């Protein structure tokens, strides 16, 4: 019984990490129709920059606070100065942007490889957990304190995102934008700034996830691609553009990965993809997604 409960905690921890990634991707997709495959690159940017900041200051907390700013700024620049102008010039938001950001992911991986491995000779890096979170707590069995921290961060971010979207003017604009882009334009809001800001925040959250993961997992060249696929699964499961869906989608993916590993290891490699494929075949709009706008 406790075995099951601890597995649930593990599942929740993984879910929250994935949620931090997926929430940005979801809102960006819902609002701008851009499937940002470079999201994995922003995650990496957070982790690697986090490592640099950590090496410089020796503080996990400073790294956690500062590192997400890099992906945040890069995200804003990318959307405002590259993606949006291209869309305005007639590139399809849907496919061209997916392909373009896919290329960007490859580019980033190559660039990071060039800087960190080829130039600095670093292969495996890690950020040390802060005192207090590095150890374990005794809650029936020893359980890593850091995992509880990840769960807390995930829940807090979920709450904040929810509050912003549901309770603030900015949130109202974004929600309206997800439902009907033309309407927001007609409202006279500078949509481009809203778009770029949302894009930047999403990338910042991915960077935050990167720093957090950098302490629990390890920082390496394939981390961005590794996290990307479960994240995409979440976005599809939850329904493209649905925040509530994203939260539950993260839970489903995190729990599936954890529980299948704990109880049916033979299926662990397939479980997530089976869910993804079944979902796309039987309910392509996701659990909470809207049906496509036009036929």
């Amino acid at each position, binding site marked *: 019984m406790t075995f099951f409960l601890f597995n649930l905690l593990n599942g929740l921890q993984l879910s929250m990490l994935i949620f931090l990634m997926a929430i940005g991707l979801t809102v960006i997709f819902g609002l701008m129709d851009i499937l940002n495959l470079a999201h994995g690159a922003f995650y990496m940017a957070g982790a690697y920059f986090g490592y640099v900041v950590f090496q410089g200051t020796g503080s996990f907390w400073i790294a956690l606070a500062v590192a997400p700013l890099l992906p945040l700024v890069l995200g804003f620049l990318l959307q405002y100065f590259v993606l949006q102008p291209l869309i305005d010039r007639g590139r399809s938001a849907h496919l061209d942007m997916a392909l373009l950001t896919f290329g960007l992911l490859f580019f980033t991986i190559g660039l990071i490889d060039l800087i960190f491995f080829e130039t600095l000779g670093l292969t495996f890096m890690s950020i040390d957990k802060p005192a207090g979170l590095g150890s374990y707590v005794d809650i029936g069995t020893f359980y890593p304190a850091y995992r509880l921290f990840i769960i807390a961060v995930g829940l807090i971010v979920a709450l904040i995102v929810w509050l912003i979207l549901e309770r603030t003017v900015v949130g109202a604009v974004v929600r309206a934008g997800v439902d009907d882009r033309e309407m927001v334009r007609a409202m006279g809001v500078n949509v481009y700034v809203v778009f770029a800001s949302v894009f930047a925040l999403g990338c910042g959250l991915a960077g935050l996830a990167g720093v957090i993961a950098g302490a629990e997992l390890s920082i390496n060249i394939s981390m961005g691609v*590794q996290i990307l696929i479960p994240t995409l699964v979440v976005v599809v499961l939850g329904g493209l553009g649905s925040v509530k869906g994203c939260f539950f989608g993260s839970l489903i993916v995190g729990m599936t990965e954890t529980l299948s590993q704990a109880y049916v290891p033979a299926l662990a490699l397939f479980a997530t993809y089976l869910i993804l494929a079944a979902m796309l075949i039987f309910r392509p709009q996701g659990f909470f997604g809207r049906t496509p706008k036009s036929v």
Partner: protein
Amino acid sequence: MNAVRKITSLLAGAGLLAAASTSALAQDKTVKVGLLSDFSGVFAQLAKDVEDSWMLALEERGGMVAGYKVEIIKEDSENSPQVGVQKANKLIKSDNVAIFGGVISSGVGIALAGVADKEKTPFVAGFAIADPLTGKFCSPYVARTSFSANALQSAAGAYWAKQGVKTAVFMGPDYAAGQAMLAGFKNGFEAAGGKVVLEELTPFKTTKDWGPSLLKAQQTGADMIYTFYAGSEAVQVVKQHAAFGMQEKMPLRGAMWIYDEALWDAMGGVQMNAIHVTNYTNALDTEASEKFEKAFSDKYGRLPVASNAMGYTNAVAIFDGLAKAIEENGGNLPEDKAKIISALASLKLDNDPRGPVHFNKDNNAMQDNLYMVQIVEGPDGKPTHKVIDTFPYGEDLPGCNMK
């Protein structure tokens, strides 16, 4: 600089200029040797380690073997068999190497064994520890200077069982190498009276959380966890094992990969006091080992690690094997390149830093002893190895039917 030279040679080889390049200069006798390894991808560090040792071994021989000047041509197989095959083709067909070696990855190694056999060009694996490489896929053109998974792991299994460890959980990635390590460990451990109570194979490359597996291991109450993980997976497993507070109750042990020196920084201290098996450590105090250690640290300013030692064996075997084959052929490179491998396999490397190494009938390296080491704090406060025991080597799996 090296790259520029290569581009020129590439351009010379490319297409229309082919005719111009045929006027090969023959005043100096040169033998070309391919260093094909996984310089990018997860094994990048190991590949670099191997390269460093190659350069050391070459320097020690003054860049010559048996009157031939050695030209090393370096290629990156990127931990991808596809790329490896392509690069091997280049080495064989475009550069006309006499022999090539180096490879880390088992998958690449097996692919290259196929190419070597087809193209009748010797290949000497530097790492690539999959059993079938010198088993099912053995060939008169293929040798290996590291070891096979079974030889190392069955010896380690037997060691721990004899130390009184009764039950163990095996954890490893669910792919060929992981399965081979499990089988090897289980063979040795259970034959000596131990019992593997849980075989926990995690999805390869996609696992992000070892929590479920560690919890499952806890449930069994076994005496230890024996693992095979490498690179970033090793870092994560070791860190998470510590984070679950299991270091006291159920120590995490394995072979050199899990506690590789290159990972110590990333592990952030939790690797201290861990015990693992290895086939070389710079803490060895044999004469051969000390000599290698000095030569290596003189050249590179740091201590050699296990992958350096394996790279060194690889290079020494290739260079000395070449020399022997040339000498046996009256001072000329033999036409039949299988003779290079047979010369190599007849070498007795008694002064190898790992301890005496020789080759078995499948052209696979065997060494006399293995070492159990502990990671302890060195005199300078930095982690280092301490040899806590020496024990006999294991055996290869059967399966080779060489023509």
